[in-house]
């Protein structure tokens, strides 16, 4: 049982569930309690001990069905094979017709096993004639481990590994034997049987390899892709990866938010709060029993994000917006603005609509127009400047390409003065700043921090460190 559960847990880990060894022990204990005969009960018991989140639970249940069905299927599939070759089929049953052929062949073969010819055959051929399929299964499993069935990353590797397993079991010798025997007509029954069994065996190996792939490494390919997407430049990601990227962004935003959304209190031990101490101890006749200490409460960060959605950043804007949307979903105090030439607040829009709809809406209404930072900032001054105070972080996502218009720098200067911090994330590399119509240099003095941000990893790192500093 330990081996079965151990493999199952390994498969779950591959599917992305964080299972600790303590939980593994719990699962073993639970399984001992419930026994493994009662499927639904075992499923619940393992689910409770191994998955600690609803989404993990769903994965677990799916994997459980896959894994244990496959397991049962293996055990059952042995039986029909055995009965087909070893036990005589009752005559007169309609479906028995092909089986009887098989039986006769088997009988012939049984006669042939002891013939001098059979003794010269390869071990695999002898085993196939013996028809002990459960022993075959064990051999497949051990050969499979050798051939790396559990390390398959892409499903295109399945045929290769299947072939390798077949070779490891002695496929080529079998082929030679078959070729040798086919020359002699006397052996035709035996050859036919062996061919049939070989096809069966191949199917069995393929099933085994596929199942291993599904259990252990199905998610490996996905993980590789995710890893790549993290590093790749946002401008180079095509739309086909958009959905996966959306998931990634959402994950990243959620992680950031769960790390930073709680309010923390920091006690400055050593500073006695005299007023509160006296008040708290009035009941004790002025004896100072309870000491109260001064502490500072750190507020949750208040963030204003401004996102450029104009034509020049259209490739990146999609992802920035996605991130913005997710951030607002998880951080309570984020206000979002978008602009090309006119600025608009989209906080409400994001809150009321679901992701795809909201993004499409934003890009349709404000996107892909020519940029005018000056005008946008003037709008921003009207809408939000009064709300910026020394707790606010302002984040600008944009390339500062202003089509040679006036940049309205004084407004940005005011924003900088009033807020706690101004962060400018530019999707272009620092070498292309100030080339062409970019006026990054004019805004630069009024930013606490300027960063190049053109991959999801960048975005994650920058916002993570900023939020950390903020709290």
């Amino acid at each position, binding site marked *: 049982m330990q081996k079965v559960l151990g493999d199952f847990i390994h498969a779950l880990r591959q599917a992305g569930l964080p299972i600790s060894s303590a939980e593994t022990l719990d699962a073993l204990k639970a399984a001992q309690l419930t026994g493994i005969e009662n499927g*639904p009960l075992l499923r619940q018991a393992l689910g*409770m001990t191994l998955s*600690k989140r609803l989404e993990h639970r769903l994965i677990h249940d799916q994997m459980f069905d896959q894994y244990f069905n496959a397991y049962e299927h293996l055990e059952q599939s042995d039986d029909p094979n055995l009965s087909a070759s070893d036990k005589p089929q009752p005559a007169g049953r309609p479906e028995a017709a092909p089986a009887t052929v098989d039986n006769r062949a088997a009988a012939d073969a049984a006669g042939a096993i002891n013939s001098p010819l059979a003794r010269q055959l390869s071990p695999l051929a002898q085993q196939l004639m013996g028809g002990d399929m459960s022993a075959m299964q064990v051999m497949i499993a051990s050969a499979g481990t050798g051939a790396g069935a559990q390390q398959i990353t892409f499903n295109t590797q399945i045929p290769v590994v299947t072939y390798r397993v077949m070779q490891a079991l002695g496929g080529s010798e079998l082929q030679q034997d078959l070729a040798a025997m086919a020359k002699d007509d006397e052996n035709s029954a035996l050859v036919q049987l062996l061919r049939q069994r070989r096809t069966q065996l191949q199917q069995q190996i393929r099933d085994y390899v596929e199942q291993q792939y599904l259990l252990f490494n199905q998610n490996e390919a996905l993980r590789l892709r995710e890893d790549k997407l993290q590093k790749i430049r946002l401008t180079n990601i095509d739309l086909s990866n958009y959905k996966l990227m959306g998931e990634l962004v959402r994950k990243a935003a959620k992680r950031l938010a769960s790390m930073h959304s709680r309010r923390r209190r920091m006690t400055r031990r050593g500073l006695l709060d005299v007023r509160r101490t006296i008040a708290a101890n009035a009941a004790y006749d002025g004896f100072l029993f309870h000491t109260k200490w001064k502490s500072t409460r750190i507020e949750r960060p208040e963030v204003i994000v401004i996102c450029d959605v104009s034509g020049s950043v259209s490739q990146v804007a999609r992802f920035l917006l996605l991130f913005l949307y997710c951030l607002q979903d998880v951080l309570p105090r984020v206000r979002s603005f978008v602009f090309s030439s006119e600025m608009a607040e989209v906080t409400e829009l994001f809150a009321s609509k679901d992701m795809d709809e909201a993004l499409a809406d934003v890009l349709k209404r404000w996107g892909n127009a020519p940029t005018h930072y000056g005008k946008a900032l003037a709008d921003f001054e009207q809408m939000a400047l009064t709300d910026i105070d020394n707790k606010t972080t302002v984040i600008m996502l944009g390339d500062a390409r202003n089509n040679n218009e006036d940049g309205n720098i004084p407004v940005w200067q005011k924003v900088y003065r009033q807020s706690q911090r101004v962060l400018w994330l530019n999707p272009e590399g620092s070498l292309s700043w100030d080339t062409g119509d970019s006026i990054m240099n004019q805004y630069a003095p009024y930013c606490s921090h300027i960063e190049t941000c053109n991959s999801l990893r960048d975005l994650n790192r920058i916002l993570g460190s900023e939020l950390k500093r903020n709290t």
Partner: protein
Amino acid sequence: MIIRNKDKIHSPDTIKQHFEGLGYICSDAIATSVYLACHLQKPILVEGPPGVGKTELAKKASELLSAPLIRMQCYEGLDEAKALYEWKYGKQLLYTQLLKDQLGDVMRGAKGLDESVTRLHQFGDIFYSDEFLEPRPLLEALRAEDGAILLIDEIDKADQEFEAFLLELLSDYQISIPELGTIKAKSSPIVFLTSNNTRELSDALKRRCLHLYIPFPCKEIEQKIITAQVPELNEQLKQQLVAFIGELRDMALKKVPAVSETIDWARALLLLNVDNLDHDWIKNTLNLLLKFQDDIEAVEPEINNLLKAVAKQV
């Protein structure tokens, strides 16, 4: 506690039956979780939408095992002094005042400061002994002679520091008090933690618990629940009611009606002598089910459509 109730908890099915006897209709998953919690001595973390009977589960478990239920409601700012123990400052103060004369007697004749202090030390830490200890829920649960059910309600509302503080209790059923040393549970309590998911709980906490997610019940179970809670309601109305609630849960509402609201509604309909669900009754009693004006406004024009859908199902 476990041994005493061995026959009641020897399998998930018996637990389920006993719960039903107590008027708590539960799914297999819930029964299994209680079974595992009792036998593995592990806390259960119960999650799910509000109003599906998370707190009720703990109450019924205490009835089932005839053990006292010790409940601790969590909130932001909850700390050790309110959750674990506190010294009875007032009593300490009063006693020192009353015993002033006694102390004088004890000290009489002592030569020099050294001797006085030595004499004082002979009496031990009287003022930091059990008599001056005010046990709070956690300590109470550990000290219960015969085991207890400890319900830590809405753990997600407490601070993260408090969550970390709970870890020792949850894994070893013991707790350290600086003045008294480590206190170990006399008989391990069965701990239920409930969470409404307002924030993500730490992995360390989750690792120590069994995880139980209670979703909205399926139709059959919900009908059984109503039969158990409001037995007088007639069969047809009950089916209509459950089907209607099911339809409401499929709508995009701010807060969908939970089981507790279904029960309230069933009671109200019984009180009003309704025997067939129609448009007017629903409209008049909708505020029992929906707690936001926006939701009520969204549902009201849809009532006829919903009723048609219900008629198809019943």
